C-alpha cells in the first residue's frame, strides 16, 4: 500500500462474509439443489456383508423395470480407478455399505424399486472389524498387500531414544484410544453429471475442483480437457468430501445414458460411504529428569483406516507431529501403523490425526508433571518448544523449503508465541486458584485443565490467482480454490483489496469452475489463507503496477513515482487523477496472474495454541459440564477477527462431539454400523454449546501474508486433552479412552474406589 493512500485497511477488520447473503435468503445453490432437463436419478446398491466376493449379479429384472435406464455393476464398468485401491466398482466388497451396483432411473422411487430387483451372489469371506484382528496373521487379507499398509510402520525419529531413556530419572507411560469420529456434514454427498457427447460437466461438493477433475479423468479415461468440475456452495466437509465413487458413478451413468444423472446419498449412506476420523490406539512413553527436563518421547500409534486407504498415510504422519515437535527434546521417535479393517473408510477430517496424537501426548504430560510433583502448566512452560526450534542439526538442504512438519532440529520457527498463549490462557481461566478450589458438599466436583498444541502454519502447494480490473471499473479475483464454509474467499478479498489500496467491496470473487479458474490446490491442511493469500497478494501487486503503468500515458506523466490507487482510480501526489473506468475504457481490461510456492527456506512456519477449561463433574451421573472454556491461538495476524473467532468457537464445539459423544459403533459380529443416523450418532446441539472465549496471541508472522498463519484446523486439536485433564483434576480419575461418556466416567470412578 502506498504511503499517500487514503485507503482504510480491510485486513484486521471483521468484513462481512461475502457469501452469506445467499445462504440466509435460501438462494445459495448446493449440488442437490440443481436440476437439469431430462435428468435421471441414481441410487446405489450397497453390500450387506463386511467382506465378500461378488460372484455374479443378475440385473435383468431391474433393467426391464419401467423408467430404468442403466445399471452399473463391477462386471460392466471400465477398469479405471477412483483411488489406487478403489476401482470404479469392484467384485470384492470390503465393508457393510460398500458399493455393489448403481441404477439410473427417471425418478428416485423407480431407482429404489430397481435396486430391490437386483440379485447378487456373494461368496462371504472372513472379516475383521478392528485393527487387532486385522493384524492377526490368521485374518483374511482385505487387500492383496495385506492388512498392514506398506507392510510396516511409518517411522520418524530425531536423536536416539535409547540414549534419552538411559538419561531419564523417571519414565512415564500409558496407552490411549480415540473413537471413529464422523464429520457427518449436514449436506450428504451428491453429484450431478452431464455428458454432452464430447464433454463432461460434474457438479459436486468439492474442496478441490481441479483435483476432482483429475480424479474423474483418470477414472474414466477421459482427457482432463474434456471435463469441467463445478463446485457449488458446499454444505461443509471438514476435509472429508473427496475421494469417493459418487461423482465417478454419476459421470459414467451420464456418459452411458446420454442424460444428466444426479446421485444424492441419504444420511445413512453419508455415514457409511463418507469418511470418518481414524480411530487410534497409542502407546506413549516419556523419559524425565528430576528437574522436569524431557529426555525422550516415544510413541507407537495404530490407526484404523477402514476398508480403503484414502488419505491414511497423511493422517498417520500428522498424528505424530505433536509427539515429535511440541516439546523441546533431543530424542524422539514416532511409529505409526495404518491397518485395514472391514469397516467404513477413514480419511481426512479437520486436523487429520493431530487431535488423536495430542490427546495421548497431552494426557501423558499431565501424568508426567504429577510424577515430578510439578504444576502441569509449569511443566509446559519449562518444556514447550521455543522460537529457536528443536535441538539438533538441520538436514534439509539450505536451498530447500522447510517442511511444515519437520523432524530435524536446528531450524527456528518464523514465529512461535506458544509461551504467550500459555500466559494469556492461564490468566483468563484463573490458573492461580486451581490448587485452592473447594468443593461444596454433594456430588459436584470442580476442576481446571489445560493442554497445548502445534500445527502446520499454512504453506501449501503451488497456488495461482488471477485478478483483473474489469469494464465496470471493479475488480475480479479469479481463484481455483474452494471456500468450504470457513470464509477463505472473504479473507483473500481483504488481502487483495489492501494490496491494491481499494475497499474490499470493489473486489468480487469468481471461483468454483475448473474452466474459468487457474489451477489451485485443495482446501486442505489449513493452507488457504497463507497460500492463496500470497498468490492473491502477488497478483494484486502486479495488477497495481500494471494499472499505474497504463495510467501513466493517460495522465500524461513520465514515470510511476508517486502514483497510487484510490477507490476512484489512480492519483498522483500532485493531484492528477484518472478513474478506473477511464483507464479500462482507454486501455481495456487489465489482468494479472500470479503463481507462488509459499514457504520458507530458513524457518518452520507453524501455528500454536493452548486451551484451558474449568468443568464440573457430577459424580452421581457422570455428567461433565463446561463452566468456562478459553481457547488461545497463535495464528499470526488475524485477518478477520469475527470469522476467525467463529472458526475457533465452531472447532472447539465440534470437538466436544469427539470428546463426549461421538463414536461410530460397528457390530463386531456382523460388521454393521449400529448408529448411522443423527438420532443414534449423537452430535453436539445448541444445548451443549459451552461459552467459549477466544483469545488471539499478539503475533505477526514475518513470512505469512499480512503476518497471518493457519487457523482452520488448529481449534480442533486441544479440546479433548484439555477436558480429560480437567476431569482428572476434578475427580482424580484419568480416562484414556474417548469419548468421555457419563458411563465411562462413572465406571472409572467406581474402579478408583
Amino acid at each position, binding site marked *: 500500500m502506498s504511503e499517500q493512500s487514503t485507503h482504510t485497511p480491510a485486513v484486521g477488520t*471483521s468484513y*462481512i*462474509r461475502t*457469501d*452469506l*447473503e445467499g*445462504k*440466509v*435468503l*435460501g*438462494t*445459495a445453490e*448446493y449440488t*442437490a*439443489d440443481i*436440476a437439469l*432437463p*431430462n*435428468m435421471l436419478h441414481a441410487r446405489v446398491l450397497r453390500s450387506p456383508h463386511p467382506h465378500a466376493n461378488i460372484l455374479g449379479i443378475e440385473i435383468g429384472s431391474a433393467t426391464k423395470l*419401467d*423408467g430404468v435406464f442403466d445399471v452399473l455393476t463391477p462386471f460392466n464398468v471400465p477398469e479405471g480407478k477412483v483411488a489406487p485401491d478403489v476401482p470404479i466398482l469392484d467384485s470384492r466388497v470390503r465393508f457393510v455399505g460398500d458399493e455393489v451396483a448403481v441404477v439410473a432411473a*427417471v*425418478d428416485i*422411487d*423407480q431407482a429404489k424399486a430397481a435396486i430391490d430387483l437386483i440379485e447378487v451372489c456373494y461368496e462371504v469371506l472372513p472379516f475383521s472389524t478392528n485393527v487387532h484382528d486385522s493384524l492377526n496373521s490368521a485374518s483374511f487379507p482385505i487387500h492383496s498387500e495385506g492388512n498392514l499398509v506398506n507392510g510396516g510402520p511409518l517411522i520418524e525419529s530425531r536423536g536416539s531414544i535409547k540414549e534419552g531413556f538411559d538419561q531419564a530419572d523417571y519414565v512415564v507411560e500409558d496407552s490411549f484410544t480415540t473413537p471413529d469420529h464422523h464429520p*457427518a*456434514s*449436514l*449436506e*450428504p454427498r451428491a453429484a450431478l453429471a452431464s455428458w454432452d457427447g464430447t464433454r463432461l460437466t460434474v457438479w459436486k461438493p468439492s474442496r478441490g475442483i481441479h483435483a476432482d477433475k483429475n480424479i474423474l479423468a483418470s477414472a474414466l479415461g477421459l482427457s482432463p480437457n474434456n471435463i469441467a468440475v463445478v463446485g457449488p*456452495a*458446499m*454444505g*461443509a466437509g471438514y476435509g472429508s468430501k473427496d475421494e469417493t465413487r459418487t461423482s465417478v458413478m454419476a459421470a459414467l451413468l451420464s456418459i452411458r445414458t446420454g442424460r444428466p444423472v444426479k446421485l*444424492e446419498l*441419504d*444420511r445413512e449412506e453419508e455415514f457409511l460411504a463418507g469418511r470418518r476420523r481414524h480411530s487410534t490406539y497409542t502407546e506413549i512413553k516419556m523419559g524425565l529428569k528430576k528437574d522436569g527436563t524431557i529426555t525422550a518421547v516415544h510413541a507407537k500409534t495404530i490407526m484404523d483406516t477402514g476398508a480403503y486407504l484414502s488419505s491414511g498415510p497423511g493422517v498417520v504422519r500428522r498424528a505424530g507431529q505433536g509427539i515429535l515437535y511440541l516439546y523441546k527434546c533431543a530424542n524422539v521417535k514416532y511409529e505409526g501403523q495404518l491397518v485395514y479393517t472391514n469397516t467404513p473408510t477413514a480419511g481426512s477430517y479437520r486436523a487429520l490425526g493431530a487431535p488423536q496424537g495430542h490427546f495421548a501426548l497431552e494426557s501423558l504430560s499431565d501424568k508426567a508433571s504429577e510424577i515430578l510433583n510439578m504444576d502441569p502448566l509449569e511443566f509446559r512452560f519449562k518444556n514447550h518448544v521455543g522460537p529457536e526450534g528443536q535441538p539438533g542439526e538441520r538436514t534439509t538442504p539450505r536451498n530447500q523449503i522447510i517442511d511444515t512438519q519437520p523432524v530435524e532440529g536446528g531450524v527456528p520457527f518464523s514465529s512461535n508465541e506458544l509461551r504467550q498463549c500459555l500466559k494469556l490462557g492461564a490468566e483468563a481461566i484463573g490458573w492461580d486458584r486451581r490448587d485452592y478450589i473447594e468443593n461444596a458438599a454433594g456430588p459436584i466436583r470442580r476442576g481446571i485443565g489445560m493442554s497445548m498444541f502445534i500445527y502446520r502454519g499454512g504453506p501449501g502447494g503451488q497456488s495461482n490467482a488471477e485478478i483483473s480490473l474489469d469494464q465496470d471499473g471493479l475488480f475480479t479475483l479469479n481463484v481455483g480454490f474452494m471456500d*468450504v*464454509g*470457513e*470464509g477463505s474467499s472473504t479473507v483473500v478479498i481483504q488481502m487483495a483489496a489492501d494490496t491494491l489500496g481499494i475497499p474490499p467491496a470493489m473486489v468480487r470473487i469468481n471461483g468454483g469452475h475448473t474452466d474459468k479458474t487457474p489451477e489451485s490446490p485443495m482446501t486442505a491442511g489449513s493452507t488457504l489463507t497463507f497460500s492463496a493469500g500470497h498468490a492473491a497478494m502477488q497478483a494484486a501487486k502486479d495488477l497495481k503496477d500494471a494499472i499505474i503503468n497504463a495510467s501513466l500515458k493517460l495522465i500524461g506523466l513520465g514515470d510511476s513515482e508517486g502514483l497510487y490507487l484510490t477507490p476512484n482510480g489512480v492519483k498522483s501526489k500532485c493531484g492528477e487523477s484518472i478513474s478506473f473506468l477511464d483507464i479500462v475504457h482507454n486501455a481495456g481490461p487489465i489482468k494479472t496472474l500470479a503463481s507462488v510456492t509459499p514457504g520458507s527456506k530458513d524457518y518452520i512456519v507453524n501455528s500454536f495454541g493452548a486451551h484451558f477449561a474449568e468443568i464440573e463433574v457430577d459424580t452421581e451421573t457422570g455428567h461433565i459440564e463446561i463452566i468456562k472454556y478459553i481457547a488461545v491461538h497463535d495464528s499470526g495476524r488475524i485477518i478477520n477477527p*469475527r470469522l476467525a473467532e*467463529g472458526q475457533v*468457537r*465452531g*472447532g*472447539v*464445539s*465440534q470437538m*466436544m462431539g469427539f470428546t463426549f459423544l461421538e463414536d461410530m459403533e460397528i457390530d463386531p459380529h456382523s460388521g454393521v454400523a449400529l448408529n448411522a*443416523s*443423527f*438420532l443414534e450418532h449423537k*452430535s*453436539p*446441539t*445448541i*444445548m451443549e*454449546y459451552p*461459552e467459549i472465549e477466544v483469545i488471539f496471541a499478539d503475533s505477526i508472522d514475518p513470512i505469512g501474508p499480512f503476518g497471518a498463519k493457519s487457523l482452520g484446523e488448529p481449534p480442533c486439536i486441544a479440546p479433548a486433552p484439555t477436558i480429560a485433564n480437567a476431569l482428572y483434576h476434578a475427580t482424580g480419575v484419568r480416562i484414556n479412552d474417548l469419548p468421555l461418556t457419563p458411563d465411562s466416567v462413572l465406571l472409572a470412578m467406581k474402579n478408583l474406589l
Partner: protein
Amino acid sequence: MDSHLTSDRVDMDDNETTTKFIVNGREYSLKIDNRYTLLDILRDHLRLTGAKKGCDLGECGACTVLLDGKVVNSCQILAARIKDKDIRTVEGLSQNETLHPLQLAFIENDGGQCGYCTPGFIMAAYPLFESEEELSTEEIKLSLAGNLCRCNAYGSIIDSVAYALEIKTNE
C-alpha cells in the same frame, strides 16, 4: 416451468391426489403423490430449495419451515397433511429484496459458516421473532435445539437470534 422434472415420472395411479395449499402467499393446486413429503414437494415440484435435505428423518432440522405458523420438519409432513395449509419457507421471508431482520442479523453476526443449516435455523427462530415475550438465552437455545449445525456455529447463531430480538425490542 420445471415440467421436465415430472414429465418422465412413472404413473403412480391411485397414489395421486390434487391438493391445494399456499406457499409464501402463493396458492398452488398440484396433483401430487400422497407418499411425497412437503420437503420433496417444495424442492422438486416448486423448486424452492432453501429448505435442505440433511437426513429426511426429522433429526437435523435443515428442512424446517412453518406450517400454519408452526415450526415443522418438512421432511416429516406427508402431502396429505398440507391440504389447505399455509406454508412459509425461507424464500418467503425477504420482501422485494429487503431482507427480514432475522436474515440481516445472521449476516451481521456471521450466523452461518457453510450455510446448509442456516435456512432451517432462521425458520426455527421465526416464531421467536414474532413472539411478544422477552426470551432468555436459554429459551432461545431450547427453541433451536431441534436444529443441528455441524460447523457448530452455535455461538454465532445464538448471537444472531438474540441480536434480531434486541433490535426488534428497541424499535
